């Protein structure tokens, strides 16, 4: 046996054409159809190699090849490592492995040495020879490449020792960053497809739905609808043909959790869909992935092909009589296609525009057949529930929001990246303990949660537990899980304007309130940020926001006013300062800023004038410098450059 996928001896007859019901279990616990110590030992040897356990004979060097690290040159690091190992004649002693995203994108490119859990950050090609010589050959860690905890200043010996990872609970992301997503055998080694095998061999479809209901899993796409209940609608719907869909049209600004799961552990999504398809009685599925995720699409296609080759997709899967075929459909760049009726229209080849409900997709979905749609993260939760049971799953989270949730931390905080925590953790813990707090010692102002559909939550509400229901009450929503952290330099009116600009551009144009209403909200917000706000604007804005929320056709329009309403609720004084005082309290809205030079403080050094990009500062050795405010573009360079505090921003 060279690979875990090879038959151990001629007694193994499993192929896609001649499926064997025990195949999945056989790979890791087998052989099952015959008793042979040698066959078993062979399997265990290969398994240990893949799992890089402490007992493994080989050390493995893991390279993050998620989108972030890949764009910082991770692939060239792998090539370099391989040639370096060859140079030392060590290519058979150590293995290299490209993996999915580790989540700590801030520190990329990331290289991990297993089984030691050594965590190297910001690795460059020049570092590779040192890692080989010092770590792999001499067995000592390359200290200068280790992660340094910004608070303690100490090197973290393993990734689990960093605050970023220590507080996480990585269930969905367990394989991400650890297995090679392009090799199905590595997924098998991590108990992959065992949840599906259990469902199909030991359970009736209704029992599977009951198990998912019992787990308390709620949809991770944003609305938090109970997944088991949703499945039961499609299961009960009459129809000879049913579909399951995976919504991988992740489009919120700053959100990348689905991308990481698809890139790092595509088989978990396929397994989830297999289980769901079996439960509702579907024989065909689509993964609707945005075209902006080429790596995710590539890895999904590889994963689907591999699953087909071993007989986990196709006809008569594991000799059970159950058949399931899966396709990947690339989107065409419309945010609204994340809305499920628009998504289905897009798969059908039509313009992605939402449709009114009823009929609901569970009754008449894709090509008017009963259809069940879940998002990437929801699907990838499912195998864990079936593998370990509903009770195990339900131990994580809060009473009404079970399990873990992946969040994408972005914005002005130290540790940007992807984190997975149990539902119910407070925002403060996520942002300060895991996220390392605000960059450059600035003051925290707000966190935007739930993307363009969510709201901004201020400092005083940071102790709220993050679950589906609490955040809605606070005027935000978990949404897909994007967390954008804003510091004191962020103008909240401008933030609302940013999100409205996004939703206005992405509105499909079908319904009046969303198409026209977001445009007028955007115009009012733009006016306010330019200092041209009128007294009546706040009332008009608020009334309009409520009408758009109450009357829009789909979730995009119904939630588009959330950033406005939430900022009006928590940061109304900033709006008022713009309108009445013509001032931006965060000094972010350039139209409301003016720069001048305090002649008394000016030392006539000329540094400001030399650095001004538009040469609008004049003066000389004898005359204090002055800013021509007509020509000034308010970039703030003079303020940053002046060593004497003579430049005044007002």
């Amino acid at each position, binding site marked *: 046996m060279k690979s875990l996928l090879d038959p151990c001896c001629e007694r193994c007859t499993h192929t896609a054409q001649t499926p064997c019901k025990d195949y999945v279990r056989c790979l890791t616990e087998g052989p099952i159809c015959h008793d042979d110590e040698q066959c078993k030992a062979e399997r265990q040897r290969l398994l240990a190699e893949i799992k890089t356990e402490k007992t493994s004979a080989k050390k493995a060097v893991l390279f993050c090849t998620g989108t972030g690290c890949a764009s910082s040159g991770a692939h060239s690091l792998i090539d370099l490592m391989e040639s370096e190992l060859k140079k030392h004649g060590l290519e058979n002693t150590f293995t290299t492995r490209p993996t999915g995203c580790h989540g700590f994108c801030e520190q990329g490119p990331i290289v991990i040495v297993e089984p030691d859990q050594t965590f190297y950050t910001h690795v460059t090609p020049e570092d590779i020879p040192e890692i080989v010589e010092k770590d792999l050959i001499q067995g000592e860690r390359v200290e200068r490449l280790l992660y340094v905890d910004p608070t303690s200043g100490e090197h973290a010996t393993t990734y689990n020792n960093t605050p970023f990872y220590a507080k996480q609970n990585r269930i969905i992301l367990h394989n991400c960053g650890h297995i090679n997503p392009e090799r199905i055998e590595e997924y098998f080694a991590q108990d992959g497809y065992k949840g599906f095998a259990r469902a199909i061999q030991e359970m009736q479809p209704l029992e599977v739905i009951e198990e998912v209901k019992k787990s308390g899993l709620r949809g991770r796409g944003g609305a938090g609808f109970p997944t088991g209940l949703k499945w039961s609608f499609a299961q009960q719907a009459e129809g000879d043909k049913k579909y399951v869909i995976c919504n991988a049209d992740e489009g919120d600004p700053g959100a990348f959790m689905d991308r990481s799961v698809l890139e790092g552990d595509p088989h978990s999504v396929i397994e989830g869909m297999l289980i769901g398809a079996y439960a509702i009685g579907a024989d065909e599925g689509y993964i609707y992935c945005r075209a902006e995720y080429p790596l995710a699409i590539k890895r999904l296609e590889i994963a689907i092909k591999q699953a087909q080759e071993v007989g986990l997709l196709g006809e008569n899967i594991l000799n059970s009589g159950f058949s399931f075929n899966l396709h990947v459909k690339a989107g065409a760049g*419309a945010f*609204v296609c994340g809305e499920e009726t628009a998504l289905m229209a897009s798969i059908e080849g039509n*313009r992605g*525009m939402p449709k*009114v409900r*009823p009929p609901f997709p569970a009754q008449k979905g894709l090509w008017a057949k009963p259809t069940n749609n879940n998002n990437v993260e929801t699907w990838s939760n499912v195998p864990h529930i079936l593998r370990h049971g509903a009770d195990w799953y339900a131990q994580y989270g809060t009473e009404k929001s079970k399990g873990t949730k992946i969040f994408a931390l972005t914005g002005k905080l130290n540790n940007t990246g992807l984190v997975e925590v149990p539902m119910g953790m407070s925002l403060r813990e996520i942002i300060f303990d895991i996220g390392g707090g605000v960059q450059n010692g600035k003051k925290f102002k707000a966190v935007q949660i739930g993307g363009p559909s969510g709201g901004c939550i201020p400092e005083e509400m940071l102790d709220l537990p993050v679950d589906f229901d609490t955040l809605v009450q606070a005027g935000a929503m978990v949404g897909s899980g994007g967390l954008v952290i804003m510091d004191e330099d962020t103008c909240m009116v401008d933030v609302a304007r940013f999100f409205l600009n996004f939703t*206005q*551009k*992405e*509105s*499909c*144009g*079908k*319904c*009046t*309130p969303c*198409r*026209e*209403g*977001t*445009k*007028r909200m955007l*115009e009012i917000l733009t006016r306010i940020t330019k200092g041209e706000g009128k007294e009546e604007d706040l009332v*008009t804005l608020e*009334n*309009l926001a409520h*009408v758009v*929320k*109450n*009357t*829009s*056709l789909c979730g995009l329009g*119904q939630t588009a006013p959330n950033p406005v309403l939430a900022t009006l609720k928590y940061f109304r004084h900033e709006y008022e300062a713009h309108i009445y005082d013509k001032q931006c309290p965060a000094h972010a809205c350039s139209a409301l800023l003016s720069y001048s030079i305090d002649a008394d403080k000016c030392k006539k050094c000329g540094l400001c004038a030399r650095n001004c990009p538009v040469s609008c500062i004049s003066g000389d050795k004898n005359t204090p410098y002055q800013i021509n405010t007509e020509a000034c573009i308010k970039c703030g360079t003079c303020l940053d450059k002046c060593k004497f505090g003579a430049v005044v921003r007002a």
Partner: protein
Amino acid sequence: MEWITLTIDGRTVTVPKGTTVLEACRMNDIKIPTLCHDPELTPAGSCRLCVVEIEGMRNLPPSCVTQATQGMVVSTHNKKVREARKTILELLVANHPLDCMTCQKMGDCSLAEYAYEYEVTGSVFQGEKRQLPLDDSNPFILRDPNKCILCGKCVRVCEEIQGKSVLDFSFRGFNTQVGPAFNVPYSESECVFCGSCVAVCPVGALTEKEMKGKGRPWEVEKVQTTCPFCGTGCNFDLNVKDGKVIGVTSNPEAPVNGRHLCVKGRFGIDMVHSPNRITEPLIKKDGEFVPASWDEALDLVASKLGAAKDNYGADAIAILSSARCTNEENFLMQKLARAVIGTNNIDHCART
């Protein structure tokens, strides 16, 4: 039939199961404004003007796509609902040219009617308006995309009734438009100019080009008649002003065709007053047509036909009749062929 009972504005009403809230209201003479709704077309639920408040439902659901259910409690005209409708109308008007005085649709425009009813000012939202070029590419339909309220009725009628699918939405957000693929003018598209899009347009975005400037709806007498262009028997309304036909509009009550017509019926009626129309018999003398009396003309035809029959036999003569004639006229024509001339060589242009 199964019936359900619900409460609308405090009134208990009973309607057949499967009725929408909008239908239930209209059955009971409760007025609900709609722009995108059309009983003949798939419900779109897109204009959102028909929103109502229903106890137990979040937001304001559109009545056109909400099924009435047993025990439902609906408010159709409370303050919240009226304010929402007014705001939606303000939004539409804010992006609509206010040249109503010269708009062909004046007097027949749903947007104007509702704006009036809901006391829309047009001043609440002032900002950018679309500035798109007019499509004046063809002799029949004038398309002003700036007046379009994107209700999508034209898109649906073209797809669902005519089966042509010439129109669809393009672009997103504020830039959303309706038009043929790649935004080509109608004349370069697959359009057959049936004009059904014009018939369903609630505003002045699609109008009959020939009627422009010729008459206001209140000045026009509508005379229902049968189309003379072929034997299908479509009905429509001649729009008559001062004794003159200024155009055709379709009549939803037309038994054969409803609102739908072909290019000839809808746009070909200018032939009525065409100066090129022949109004008296003409006989070619010395290479030129010269007006003649009916007696003279008929005598000439009779003598020529008689001569042909005498010289070559009755079967040397064939008569081709027209689909534009009435059944009676066609009957007489075949009588002429068979009984008078004595040949069975009688045929009809629409037979193939």
